């Protein structure tokens, strides 16, 4: 589990870095560009963060979903509030969708029997978890890089 905590710290720091860079350049976006940036960044960040948080928290299902929904709403409202009210709406919607998907992926990784995936061994379960979390972190880094690359151009 220590590796997944490390990946979570990397993801949170990448999200904070993205927020900081967007906050510094927020005057130069027009409205369509702001909507695109908000929906893309929010959906990527909440998908990956929800997946990691669900894997790490070992509580009941409804408590995990409550924590994840609060996290998604907070991230969406935070990224949307860089711009106008339309972007807050888009950010909230995309954050809630992304966090629900991420929570489902995390639940399946914790307990593959609910999807009838034939993995029973504990070490194989842990290996599966590490592989998919690492892959999601890689994709997230690519998405954040593309979002930040689009600011300069």
């Amino acid at each position, binding site marked *: 589990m220590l590796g997944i905590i490390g990946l979570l710290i990397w993801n949170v720091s990448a999200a904070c870095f993205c927020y900081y860079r967007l906050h510094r350049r927020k005057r130069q976006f027009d409205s369509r560009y702001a909507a*695109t940036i908000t929906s893309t960044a929010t959906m990527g960040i909440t998908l990956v963060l929800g997946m990691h948080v669900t894997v790490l928290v070992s509580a009941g299902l409804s408590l995990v979903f409550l924590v994840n929904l609060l996290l998604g709403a907070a991230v969406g409202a935070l990224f949307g509030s860089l711009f106008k009210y339309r972007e807050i709406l888009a950010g909230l919607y995309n954050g809630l969708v992304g966090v629900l*998907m991420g929570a489902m992926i995390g639940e399946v990784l914790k307990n593959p029997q609910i999807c009838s995936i034939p993995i029973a061994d504990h070490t194989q379960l842990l290996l*599966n978890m590490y592989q998919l979390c690492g892959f999601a972190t890689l994709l997230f880094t690519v*998405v954040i890089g593309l979002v930040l690359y689009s600011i300069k151009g």
Partner: protein
Amino acid sequence: MRDLSFVLILYSNLALFALLYVYVRRRRKLISIHLGMNISMALGGLVGLSTGIFLILQYPFHFTAITMAAALTGMGAGALFGALFDYQAMLTGLINGMMMGLMAPMLGAILTDPYFFTVILEVFIFLIIAVLFAAVKRS
């Protein structure tokens, strides 16, 4: 022949999407940016969805590898369709393909009647393609 039926369906679907790419590429000067954004969203999601579902129905023991392959395929397809228009359409298609590709193997693993679901999915894919043809022709 029966053993590889899902892979053959997937192959025909991907060939259909490649033909559709050529069609959209020929008419990309006529398509406005909002329609381009929606085209990249819908087709990136469809490519990721069909890849994930048909691969997990064919090989049910390789969940991790299939999730990675479906996410990469969806991202690549969304980015290719979006790159015909502009950078924002590329970002939208990329994130939708990634989400659909990560979700689709999970959906395929819980299915109990795969043939019925395959028929319904193909009907919806053809419906979406018909709507897309109408939208491109109207614009």
